[in-house]
């Protein structure tokens, strides 16, 4: 009887065999789903509107700006010195990098150079900050995917970095560690020793993170071939940082256009091949090891001398404009400053890596599953404070 009905499409009882070339799936209504802005996996207040076909992502749209504070407008209304702490509030997990970029941009505009000792301190703290940023990224990214343990390990180790920051400048997160012209604070007693101890402590712990994840079957399933982006696409989309390097483009501002005294140090630029979430993970892990190398060389070679260049009390750069960029943990962080010769910038533009990298989300998640969106948002490593500014 069943066979009879099946052969007679007029009297078909069910529509289970309606798979035609025009409608290849069963019920394939598109669904618009809203994710965020209050969602733990978006790492802040990011709202993503997903267009779905079942579990598959057809397209996304990011809605951003929930954390917009008008940093660039504030910059125009504060003096150069007063604006310095504000930059820490953009990428608040890498405040030291933000401060370094800003101070160096203003120094370049004023044509002063920080003394060598200040540069060494700057490099040490910036690289420690890169470690802290990558640790936070690893912990939360793994947590999003379902691996809970790395979070405890990374936060345990990040704590030690924050303690060093606190001892150095009194703040753990929004450090305001550098000043235009150099550093305000001299290193504290035992600074070098503490950092050397930390390097010795962290090296085996990075192996430990890798032991938890690199060969982990679930981790591999969730990250391999997920969120693939090619090097050419990265360049077209302006994506920089570990995301670009994981797609095989060997480019790092620290090497291409060295700032501070990065040219003095021996380190490598780790790259990936496949441009997927797993390669981005490997690149960041390798970067942490390279940071250890840089810090190790720097801490053993801190020269004696002043830590502050001769900078006037009232900072008034000559009329002109400057673009200066550094390699923040997220990518190329640039400052474009226009000076009209007064004490306040006429225009202060921040080129935020997170903002530009986030634009690649759509390219990376198309055709993936909903659960992969979470993995990809994590792997881009955005900080919404910097996206929205």
């Amino acid at each position, binding site marked *: 009887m069943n066979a009879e009905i099946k052969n007679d499409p007029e009297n078909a009882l069910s529509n289970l065999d309606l798979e035609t070339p025009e409608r290849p799936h069963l019920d394939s209504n598109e669904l618009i789903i809203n994710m965020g802005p209050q969602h733990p996996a978006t790492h802040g207040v990011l709202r993503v509107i997903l267009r779905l076909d079942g579990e598959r992502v057809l397209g996304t749209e990011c809605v*951003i*700006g929930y954390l*917009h504070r*008008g940093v*660039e*407008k*504030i910059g*125009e*209304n504060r003096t150069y010195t007063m604006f310095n702490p504000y930059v820490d509030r953009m990428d608040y997990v890498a405040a030291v990098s933000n401060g370094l970029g800003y101070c160096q941009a203003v120094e*370049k*505009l004023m*044509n002063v150079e920080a003394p060598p000792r200040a540069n060494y301190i700057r490099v040490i703290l910036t690289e420690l900050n890169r470690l802290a940023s990558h640790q936070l990224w690893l912990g939360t990214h793994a947590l999003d995917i379902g691996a809970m343990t790395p979070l405890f390990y990374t936060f345990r180790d990040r704590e030690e970095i924050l303690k060093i920051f606190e001892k150095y400048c009194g703040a753990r997160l929004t450090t305001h560690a550098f000043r235009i012209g150099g550093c305000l604070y001299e290193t504290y007693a035992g600074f070098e020793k503490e950092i050397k101890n930390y390097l010795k402590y962290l090296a085996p712990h990075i192996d430990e993170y890798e032991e938890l994840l690199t060969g982990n079957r679930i981790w591999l399933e969730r990250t391999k071939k997920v969120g693939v982006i090619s090097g050419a*696409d990265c*360049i*077209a*989309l*302006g*994506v920089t940082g570990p995301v670009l390097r994981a797609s095989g*483009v060997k*480019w790092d501002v620290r090497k*291409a*256009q060295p700032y501070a005294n990065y040219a003095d140090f021996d380190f490598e630029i780790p790259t990936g091949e496949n441009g997927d979430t797993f390669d981005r993970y490997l690149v960041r892990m390798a970067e942490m090891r390279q940071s250890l190398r840089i810090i190790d060389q720097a801490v053993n070679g801190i020269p004696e001398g002043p830590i502050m260049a001769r900078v*006037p009390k*009232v900072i*008034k*750069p*000559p*009329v*002109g*404009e*400057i*673009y200066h*960029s550094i390699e923040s943990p997220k990518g*190329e962080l*640039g400052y*474009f400053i*226009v000076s009209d*010769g007064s004490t306040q910038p*006429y*225009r202060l*533009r921040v*080129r935020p890596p997170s*903002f*530009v990298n986030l*634009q690649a989300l759509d390219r990376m998640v198309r055709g993936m599953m909903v659960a992969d969106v979470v993995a990809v948002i994590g792997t881009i490593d955005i900080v919404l404070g910097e996206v*929205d*500014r």
Partner: protein
Amino acid sequence: MTEEPKSPVPPPPDGESKPAPETSKPPVATPAAAPPKPAVSAQPAGPVPVPWASPLAEKYKGRYGSGLEALSYLRQNYLTVNRSLIPGILQLLRDEDHFDYCVDITAVHYPKREKQFDVLWILYSFSRNERVRVKTQIADGESLPSAVPVWATANWLEREVYDMFGIKFDGHPDLKRILLPDGWKGHPLRKDYGILQQDQEWVQINLGIESGQ
């Protein structure tokens, strides 16, 4: 000590005409209190943009002539171009000179100028390891061709310029506000937009509060 009357004030900024010329005779009385103002806000004259001499600059000068100026300031190169050159020169820079990475697009507002806005494209070439800025001036209300066909990254960057300055980009696939809410009035990075200013009406309707201040 008496020979060479070394004044304690810092040397005057070079190039500036100082009202009091350098005295050759030794000061007789009260040398310490003599200088009236120690170099009023010793503003260094600062470097000035110099012509940018390079094969690249020559090439574009040869091609576009007077519509283009190639300058260099603090060892950073930029091209100041006429607005009419804009879609073409960006395309050429990418296609022929490998400026394949558009770092940033931004604008600067000069309300007192006739052409109120400077719009800038900051470009980088991986193969040349070189940056260049392309700069053009447009009037308020004037639009620019979108760079999205040249660099995909221009999409959000142009949306931000539109959001903050109200500069429109023709041919942009989805030109709408990006950081501020859709219905917001005003463009905050214009100089006539106060730092405390906000769209009261939007705040009252959408947030249900009298004021966001």
